[in-house]
């Protein structure tokens, strides 16, 4: 049971100029689980994701990915990590194939393994028809898919996606959600988003952050209206909202 926890973060805190952005956050991710990370803007979602991907060092706390300490052995731990930031980190002047090749090399994949990994990622993200086109010429939806392909290329244990469906049309959104569901079967996925129906569509469990703290962390089973839960938790201690409620 212990070994099936792929990502464990304990007591994570992060200050910016003595202003806490994230306080004492605990996060666990089981194998084959899709976790939705929710919260209003400024709740600390991005900070949390940057810490989990090793792009930001926490002030206190520990992060283990697949049992490896991210802070002690970053290079080992990052092998098991795929990350799609809010803005897909793609080089516009490369073609899709060239770009994926470079990403695979950065992850130390070589020879036949590399070719196979690239064609699998291309297949899963439906990139085959644009594989020789320049990324600069792709639509936003395709760029997003290239970003996801990059994140799952080395088949990492943990995939972290930051708002993967922003700016996509409904059809593309549906495809990406389907893809995330599929990913959840072999990898563990953390999904950060503002779109509540998306969480209900793809996530097994949801963790809601507000002002740097976890205010809700439970499975989605038995919740009929995530929206109600979200507003209750996030705005219960917000004076502006309380006043409005009082007047009505």
């Amino acid at each position: 049971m212990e070994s099936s926890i792929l990502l464990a973060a304990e007591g994570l805190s992060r200050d910016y100029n003595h202003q806490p952005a994230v306080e004492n956050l605990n996060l666990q991710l089981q194998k084959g689980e899709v976790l939705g990370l929710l919260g209003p803007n400024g709740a600390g979602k991005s900070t949390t994701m940057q810490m989990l991907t090793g792009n930001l060092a926490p002030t206190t706390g520990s992060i283990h990915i697949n049992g490896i300490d991210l802070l002690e052995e970053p290079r080992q731990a990052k092998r098991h990590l795929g990350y799609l930031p809010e803005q897909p980190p793609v080089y516009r002047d490369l073609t899709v194939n060239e770009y994926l090749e470079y990403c695979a090399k950065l992850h130390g994949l070589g020879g036949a393994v590399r070719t196979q990994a690239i064609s699998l990622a291309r297949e899963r993200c439906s990139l085959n028809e644009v594989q020789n086109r320049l990324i600069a010429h792709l639509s936003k939806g395709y760029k997003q898919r290239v970003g996801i392909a990059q994140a799952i290329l080395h088949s990492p244990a943990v995939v972290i996606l930051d708002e993967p469906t922003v700016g996509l049309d409904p059809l593309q959104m549906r495809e990406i959600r389907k893809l995330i569901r599929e990913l959840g079967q072999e990898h563990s996925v953390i999904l950060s988003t503002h779109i509540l129906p998306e969480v209900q569509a793809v996530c097994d469990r949801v963790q809601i952050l507000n002002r740097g703290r976890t205010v809700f962390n439970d499975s989605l089973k038995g919740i009929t209206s995530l929206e109600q839960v979200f507003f209750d938790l996030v705005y219960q201690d917000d004076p502006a909202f309380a006043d409005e409620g009082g007047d009505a």
Partner: protein
Amino acid sequence: MKMIWIIASTEFRRLFISPLAWSVLAVVQFILAWVFLLGLNEYVTQIQPAMVGRENAPGLSDLVVSALYLWAGVIMLAVMPVLTMRLLAEERMNQTLALLTTAPISISQIVLGKYVGLLLLIMTMIAMLTLMPLSLSLGTDLDWGKLAAAILGLFLLLASFAAAGLFLSSLTRQPIIAAVSTFGLLLFLMVLYISGNSQGAGSELFIYLSHFGHFLSFLEGLFDSSDLMYYLLFIISFLLLTIRKLDNERLQR
């Protein structure tokens, strides 16, 4: 080591995918060819006849070849900031740096990879430039030692430009600011040399600090290990500063 090479070769290739490397190489080559022909013409029509029969007369290598490499150094002072600004500042602006910082590679590998990628372009440029003096060897005897010193000197000078530019590129997310500040720093080091040589207010220290003084002694054909050390220290310090800067970004903001 392998990772550094992977990053360097991709950086080098990306330079040639965009028109940037091609236009830089073409413009620099054109201007230097002009300078070279001008110098050669002057030498053949005016200097050579005047030197006939003199002992220890300055030769082609002294007059034409040294001037060519000096010009190359001066032109690259203006060109290098454009090449270095894209290394980190542009990646920041396009938010692509996360690809490298999330991959299982260290910050030093990222910095060295980018630096080596640019060094490859510098070597290409110097190789193309060196074809011009080499063409003279068809008709005359060149001073090979002097040529080698000039090549090494130019390489070290440009490598030091690149290291300074890489560091300034790591400080900002605006490529233009990176380019302007790099140009400013490189120009300042040249002004240091001029002010070190000025009448009355000359200073040995200023001359030592400026990278141009060390370059000139290479052009005279002098290989002094203290000049070499100057460049190595200059390069290593700026690379370490860049690594520190990127590391700090993770630790605090």
